[in-house]
């Protein structure tokens, strides 16, 4: 409120003129910030010199020399630190993606359950939300890791499900699909089905605009998506072979392994975030006034259609912004995995690499900018989406 524009007195001392005072304040603020920055920079320079640390990102080309318990891309101990960075980044993204998908599913279920006409369901969802969201996520990760997964029996006494899935204290073992040689017809069929459904949807929309006749797009697309690839399976056989986990010696070989660190972090984070998403969804649905439902039914829409065409689009508008920040929280919370040694960005880079190389500034800068980049890109994406669905007001 400093700039009251033309109302400022024409003369007077320097401090009573709002415009001059505004300049003064800003100059002082900038000078302070620059001074602090210079002070920190200067100290860092001296400290680095005294400790004999050379700064720069050259260390990224050096060989890392340590093993990583889970890597989505090929990695050996002789690979460089930049490869370690990629492994860590991918692991962080993996945790985030799994967590977001699970949390969304559980969260929306919870949100709907909170509004159920059934008293018991409503109460159960409420108790769940109030319990889970008041317990620190780190504690929940520890609980899953130390209290649930660690006491599981060893590989020889694994709990098994149909001799296909095995759970023991080294993780969850499951069969992995391996591409069979003659599978290209399957992929082509899948592609045709996807393109076909998109075209069908467009055509149905145009027809409804012209004639008002609805077309059962959903069922037809589902049919396409199941039938076409299904047909190729019938004709040319199953496109996958399964690589089964087999107990050999003291451990399982083959198949996919989900390490216990990953299970605990994904379980804890998705259950924790789901509690918040549930509340978001509930408030979103409640924000759509009852008049909308009544208006829809007076137009002759059935309850299912009312929900799909009237309630959900309006509720989403309220749900999306807080949902985005929940997703961001989940991504940032995935760094808690460092506490149980899951090899993601923080534990690999700010932990192991920093300790090995001593390049504190560079590693911290890289780690933090990864999270900043993820945060900023998710919020930009969500802003775009938000703008698209925003209410167009007069």
């Amino acid at each position, binding site marked *: *409120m*400093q*700039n*009251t524009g033309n109302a400022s007195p024409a003369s007077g001392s320097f401090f009573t003129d709002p415009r001059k005072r*505004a300049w003064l*304040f*800003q*100059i002082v*603020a*900038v000078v302070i*910030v620059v001074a602090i920055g210079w002070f*920190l920079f200067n*100290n*860092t320079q*001296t*400290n*680095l010199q*005294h400790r004999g640390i050379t700064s720069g990102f050259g260390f990224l080309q050096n060989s890392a020399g340590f093993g990583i318990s889970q890597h989505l891309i090929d990695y050996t101990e002789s690979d460089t630190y930049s490869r370690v960075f990629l492994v860590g980044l991918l692991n962080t993204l993996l945790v985030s993606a799994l967590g977001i998908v699970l949390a969304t599913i559980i969260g929306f279920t919870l949100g709907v359950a909170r509004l*159920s*006409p*059934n*008293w*018991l*369901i409503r109460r*159960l969802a409420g108790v769940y939300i*109030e*319990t889970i*969201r*008041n*317990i*620190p*996520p*780190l*504690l*929940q990760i*520890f*609980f899953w890791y*130390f*209290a649930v997964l*660690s*006491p599981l029996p060893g590989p020889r006494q694994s709990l098994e499900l149909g001799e296909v899935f095995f759970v023991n204290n080294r993780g969850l073992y499951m069969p992995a699909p391996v591409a069979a040689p003659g599978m290209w017809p399957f992929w082509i069929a899948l592609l045709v089905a996807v393109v076909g459904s998109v075209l069908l949807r467009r055509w149905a929309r145009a027809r409804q605009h012209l004639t008002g006749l609805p077309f059962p797009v959903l069922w037809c697309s589902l049919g396409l998506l199941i039938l076409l690839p299904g047909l190729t399976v019938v004709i040319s056989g199953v496109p996958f072979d399964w690589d089964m986990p087999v107990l050999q010696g003291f451990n399982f070989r083959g198949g996919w392994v989900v390490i216990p660190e990953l299970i605990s972090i994904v379980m804890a984070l998705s259950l924790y975030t789901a509690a918040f998403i549930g509340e978001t969804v509930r408030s979103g649905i409640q924000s759509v006034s009852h008049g909308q439902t009544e208006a829809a039914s007076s137009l002759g829409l059935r309850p299912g259609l009312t929900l799909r065409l009237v309630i959900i689009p309006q509720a989403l508008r309220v749900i999306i912004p807080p949902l985005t920040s929940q997703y961001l929280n989940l991504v*940032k*919370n995935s*760094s*808690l995995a*460092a*506490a149980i040694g899951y090899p993601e960005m*923080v534990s690999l880079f*700010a932990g192991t690499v*920093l300790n090995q190389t001593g390049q*504190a*500034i560079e590693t*911290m800068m890289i*780690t*933090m900018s990864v*999270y*900043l980049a993820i*945060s*900023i890109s998710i919020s930009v994406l969500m802003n775009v989406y938000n703008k698209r669905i925003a209410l167009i007001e007069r």
Partner: protein
Amino acid sequence: MSNTTHTFKPSLPPPTLNVGVIGWLRTNLFSSVGNTLLTLVALYLIWLVVPPIFNWAFLQADWAGATRADCTAEGACWVFVKERFGQFMYGFYPAELRWRVDLTAVLAVVGAAPLFFDRFKHKARYGIALLVAYPVIAFWLLYGGFGLQVVPSSAWGGLMLTIVIAAVGIAGALPLGILLALGRRSSLPAIKVICVTTIEFWRGVPLITVLFLSSVMLPLFLPEGLSLDKLLRAVVMVVIFEAAYIAEVVRGGMQAIPKGQYEAAAAMGLGYWRTMGLVILPQALKLVIPGIVNTFIALFKDTSLVIIIGLFDFLNSIKRATADPAWLGMSTEGYVFAALVYWVFCFAMSSYSAHLERKLNTGHTR
């Protein structure tokens, strides 16, 4: 001829199936086939989950004893929690000096109590006096000096340390957050840019990296020879980190204040600070109490992350205790106890915020 009078028959009771317990059951639990199914599934799940947990935690649990050998029953071994209770609460604070921690806590409760009574007249003055005096007394009692034996902060631990970090964090983050929010809404471009950058930077990175920063980078940033206490570094980082979140919450409240309020304040001849302090902030802060308390709850939960830089807060002391060879296999008991304690604190905070919201809601609802 007899005098005929119309006597009304007494009204029939409402159908028994629609009122009372049966009616309630019918509308709330068994209103349709689907609902009935849901109810039955939910009941089955409850029956599957609750009795075993109850059995484990109470019926078959061990309460008495002093060592692991005393835990003979099937259920939980609460002896572990009982034996380590002192460590969970005070960390390595010398046992004979723990009365100082207790006294600090009692003083906080007794000192703050008058603020919760509506009849107390001088709330504002008393509150400010308390805010100035209490931290000094608390620091003196906890740390020592001036006649008391000094207990270095490295000996602090357990729930006490968690509460210290949370309390200092809350007390520091709120004013800093309000200042940042004011800066973000400022009409001075330089100040606005500085505040926006600060807020967005701190909100974009996880607290863990910030704590790492405090333990590996701060020594590089500071002049040689100057080293800050580990706890102090962590607390400073927590304050700045949570202030960024508070700032966004407060900004939301300020944006909700109609422009007329600013104009009215200007018409009254109020300058910037008076406009903000007397007109805008009181209304804005009232609007965002739930958001602020939610940030405080998040802060309280986030204090558990100091485990990363090796501080012995409540969660870390429990984690260490469960790794003790004398008490192996007590993880479940330990973490359930920890969850219970954290839950009590967070739930109390959120309940109080709901209460405050109802009390301060001075009739803007339609």
